[in-house]
């Protein structure tokens, strides 16, 4: 019986140039993944605290994006129909955050960011990853990254709801139209950034026209594809800015709800 000895992993495989160093890069290649870890961990900690806080997410006429759509009877907001009563230990945010979380988790840009920074796969270009085996996105659970387009479509529904929230913030605290405060601008900016992030998505680019091979037969879809392609070139920037946008919008609503600040009212 013949036994096969697996080849040594990586750049130490037989026949390759014998260089012991994991990398010969002289620049600070670790800075970018370190910053990514820091920012994403900070966001995860903040959003987890807020999702479980179950308070200070609604102050008329503003609602935090972490709690919208407000779908349970226990939810304080009045911007969305109450659909059901859940168990009290589940906050209204926990029912809905799976959509934005799933959208960002399966996003082609964020995948690059966290594969590099959390999985170190690889930590940076031409820097060896620490693991011996690698199967990419071919097996469970990472094969589920392929559902990204469904989260994209659900995300569009959420964007529409958050845009509706921003429109409703033109009402004052008694429900009369004709109000505008700094919070209105904050909600509008948040909704705009979320639209830009969603519409610049790679799955969006594919759906609107990327799957076609004959653009000349589909001029409208070609125009959409061209537009989305332009946005797509900035997908990374939109991913980060919209992430900060969501957190800062929630923080603004929280500061208003706790009475720490008062809303600057324009009219």
């Amino acid at each position, binding site marked *: 019986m013949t036994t096969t000895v697996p080849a040594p992993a990586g750049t130490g495989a037989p026949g390759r140039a*014998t260089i012991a160093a994991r990398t*010969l890069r002289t620049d600070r290649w670790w800075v970018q993944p370190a910053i990514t870890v820091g920012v994403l961990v900070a966001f995860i900690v903040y959003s987890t605290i807020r999702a479980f806080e179950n308070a200070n997410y609604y102050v008329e006429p503003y609602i935090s994006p972490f709690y919208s759509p407000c779908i349970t009877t226990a939810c304080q907001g009045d911007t969305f129909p109450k659909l059901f009563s859940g168990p009290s230990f589940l906050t209204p945010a926990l029912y809905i955050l799976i959509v934005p979380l799933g959208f960002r988790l399966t996003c082609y840009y964020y995948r690059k960011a966290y594969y590099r920074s959390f999985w170190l796969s690889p930590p940076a*270009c*031409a820097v*060896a990853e620490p693991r011996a085996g*690698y199967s*990419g996105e071919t097996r469970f659970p990472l094969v589920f990254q*392929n559902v990204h387009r469904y989260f994209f479509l659900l995300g569009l529904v959420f964007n529409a709801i958050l845009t509706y929230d921003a429109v409703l913030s033109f009402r004052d605290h008694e429900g009369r139209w004709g109000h505008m405060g700094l919070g209105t601008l904050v909600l509008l900016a948040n909704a705009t950034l979320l639209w830009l992030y969603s519409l610049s998505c790679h799955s969006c680019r*594919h759906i609107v026209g990327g799957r076609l*091979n004959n653009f000349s037969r589909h001029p409208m879809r070609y125009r959409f594809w061209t537009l989305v392609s332009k946005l797509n070139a900035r997908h990374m920037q939109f991913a980060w800015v919209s992430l900060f946008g969501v957190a800062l919008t929630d923080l603004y609503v929280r500061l208003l709800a706790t009475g720490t600040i008062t809303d600057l009212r324009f009219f």
Partner: protein
Amino acid sequence: MTYDAKLRVWRGDADGGELRDFTVEANDGEVVLDVIHRLQATQAGDLAVRWNCKAGKCGSCSAEINGRPRLMCLTRMSTFAEDDVITVTPMRTFPVIRDLVTDVSYNYEKAAQIPAFTPQPRDADGNHRMQQVDVERPQEFRKCIECFLCQDVCHVVRDHEDNKKVFAGPRFLMRLAELDMHPLDNLDRRKVSQENFGVGMCNITKCCSEVCPEGIHITDNAIIPLKERVVDRKYDPITWLGAKIGRRPHS
């Protein structure tokens, strides 16, 4: 201005080797390949280095400079400080032949396995016709000079020798995308892209795009669209159903 550049160059072959230090004259406007040539001319006459056009168009002088996959002819000496030690090694993903020259036949083997361009029948007048707007996407990929830096930097094969059997690498995923997007091509390459060439192995960390000397957006414009096409076929029941009932042909 002339100064003495400090070089560390890998010397050896498949049986072993080491980084050796050299001091070589460098002049204004030179690139790393110039200095390597001067090293070969003045101190190491048997230094093996593959090169051809010295203009970033032939893709021959691929190497790793300070650990980064680069073309030696496109890496200006002015990007380094005069007292920097510049380390030059062969590409670390492929078997070394000697010094800076590697055996890149893995790439040619993968290229040979890709199903060839399969055009639809000609028009009645005997011509093939396509619109410029339809070929613009694949044309970006035709800029490839096959320097194989993207193959070198891709961690899927760089860090995992065994994956060479099941993964074609970014250059050839891009070739598959190019053919799959081609307006005149009739062959559906989505199944082989997944099952034979390992598009699912790519975790889109974009190093291929970072090192491409032609600036091709390999990940965004080729690999991710190819992944999305594979999703259409394999993981999207709505698209699958649309194709089955004839509402969504693969075109």
